[in-house]
């Protein structure tokens, strides 16, 4: 299991477009990914759950990656967040 934290820099937070990109990214990975914000957590492969967290700019979220390819998956995700959020 790998975890890392990320603080959102994107103006609109994890809204429809980035959420959609994130979910399709996660689905392409072999590991299961969970996002946690302020005690609430959501599966990152469920668009609805991700958007339901209501993550906005300045929020710090905790990402947990678990599975066979968790090392590479975590690295890829980190890069994804830096680039998109």
């Amino acid at each position, binding site marked *: 299991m790998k975890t890392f934290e990320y603080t959102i820099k994107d103006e*609109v937070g994890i809204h*429809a477009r980035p959420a*959609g*990109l994130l979910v399709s990214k996660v689905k392409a990975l072999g590991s299961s990914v969970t996002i946690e914000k302020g005690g609430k957590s959501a599966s990152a492969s469920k668009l*609805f759950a991700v958007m339901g967290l209501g993550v906005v700019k300045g929020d710090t979220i905790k990402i947990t990656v678990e599975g066979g390819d968790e090392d590479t998956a975590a690295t890829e995700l980190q890069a994804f967040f830096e680039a998109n959020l």
Partner: protein
Amino acid sequence: MKSKIFGVLQRVGRSFMLPIALLPVAGLLLGIGSSFTNATTLETYHLTNIIYEGGILYTILDIMAKTGSAVFDNLALLFAMGVAIGMAKKEKEVAALSGAIAFLIMNTAISALITANGGVESMAANSTTSVLGITTLQMGVFGGIIVGLGVAALHNRFYKIELPQVLSFFGGTRFVPIISSIVYLIVGIVMYFVWPVIQGWIASLGDLVLASGYAGTWIYGIIERALIPFGLHHVFYMPFWQTEVGGAMMIDGTLVQGAQNIFFAELASKSTTQFSVSATRFMSGKFPFMIFGLPAAALAMYHTARPEKKKVVGGLLLSAALTAMLTGITEPIEFTFLFVSPLMYGIHCVLAGLSYMLMHIFNVGVGMTFSGGLIDLTLFGILQGNAKTNWIWIVIVGLVYAVVYYLIFSLMIKHFNYKTPGREADDEETKLYTRKDVDARKAASSGTASSGDNVSALILQGLGGKANLSDIDACATRLRITVKDPALVQDSLLKQSGASGVIHKGNGVQIIYGPQVSVVKSRFEDYLDSPDSNNPAAVVDSAPAPETKADAPAAPAAKPIVLGAHMTGKILPLSEVEDEVFSAGILGEGVAIEPTEGKLYAPCDGTIDNVTDTHHAVSMTSAEGCEILLHVGIDTVKLGGKFFNVHVKDGQAVVRGDLLLSFDMKGIREAGYKLTTPMIVCNTDEYASVTPIAQGNTKPGKNILEIQ
């Protein structure tokens, strides 16, 4: 044994419902007709110039009065047929025919014996009457019930009988009227000898009741109310209303027996100056607590509900209160508190009994057809004038009752912290009332019948499947089911189907729905005839809620649904939306609308999951589990909420067509944004297909997206 008797009594009670359901109509005809042909009434309201004997209006009114009277006069025959229908398990129409024939045969046999033994003169005074032109023993509605019960028993035993080859034409259902005729020929002979003895007992019971005075009236009232939860009240009050137990009286030269019959005979009589309170004591007491007391209790429940629940609970309680006030059907209110506090129901029984007694004491002579609502009060109280009925005491006592009920209910609910509607913790029970409310609103607004399947599936699942059912029926407010194995019944599923309560007694299950039960029953029966009913779990497991919009061919993972238009405007395929996150289907499949009005509506029944902080997008989950994203405009997140107004909040239950957002179209356009609004099914991968089913201009209410 005890529960078996209860089961039989229940079925007898519900078999009364068919003839009883006719009484309000007959009562309306008789009430209006006889009120405006009554000389005193006409003079009081100065109508003698318009309505006079021989005039057209008078004749029409007279026809109304006489046809209404015909129903009450022949109630015994209606019971003979109605009870036979109600108690017969199958081929009910044969039981009805047999009931009518058996009733004629029994009375004719009695009549022949009366003639053979010296005619009416040789019989005890007032022990005979004329039924359908046959001079026979005065048996009242009992005569009909005896026939109905017996014929149904014969019917259930013989309707599948196989006779020897030569006689096979007379086998099966054709045998039922034959055997009924023969048996009731004998019953008629027996009755000629036995019934006079029973008449004596009934007369002394009637005397006893009459002599019991005010206290007797009070006890009658308490018992009548206390039997409601068991559904046995019809069995209890019927003898008082329809037979000599409730008194006997000579009116215009005819002997009339039973409280209700006496009241309506007096109503039809031109010479009545005041209605007999000795009869109406079994009826008038309903008015104060039904029109005033229980609605006040509903108000108390509303005021003690949690503020955030008030809107939902208000709708439920208001409709229940109006039902009680107008029609006198009180079960919807009574059951809301019966299950959370039997003690409160006990107090209600005592107060109801007291109401009967007070009406007796104050000489209130207002009768009723069926129950004590405003309609009956107007027709049989106010219209008849205070001089004949003393109806004003109903209002006076009623107002006091309103205060008393309000105070008692408010104090008890707060003191004992009863979980009346809107006070529950956030568990299933809250949903129960919400769902019922949603169902009622939906039925009222759309009038569609498509939600039946899932409700029926839930009921069937809750009852333990098709194989567990033995008998299905319904009375005014409840579905009454006899099951083979009571252990298989799951109350939680039944409650999910919209029931406000479930009662078990042995193999009998009563599921309380309120007055819409007849619809629930017929849909349930239709559902049982459909192949879907062989596997109700398929529907129930994947969709805990009863709402559904489309009939399902075998569902894949999730329940199919058809979504309505979320806006007024022009439909666009998702691929033409100028934002690749939508057009490429990254978020899921769906459809978009280019709006012509700045309003966003719910495309289906469901729950709001989230309204974004920026107010331009709403996500909701349909009752079937479909996850829907409604996103107003392209890139409008950057407006930060400007131009948008939100009308719902997270977690709120909505029905199809509810307004979710409104927005300033001009403002958004001038700020440089497009208004194209996609509706996306976020869990598209749980379905086999998401297909737009409409093109061109649309508006809320039209179906636009089919999801299977």
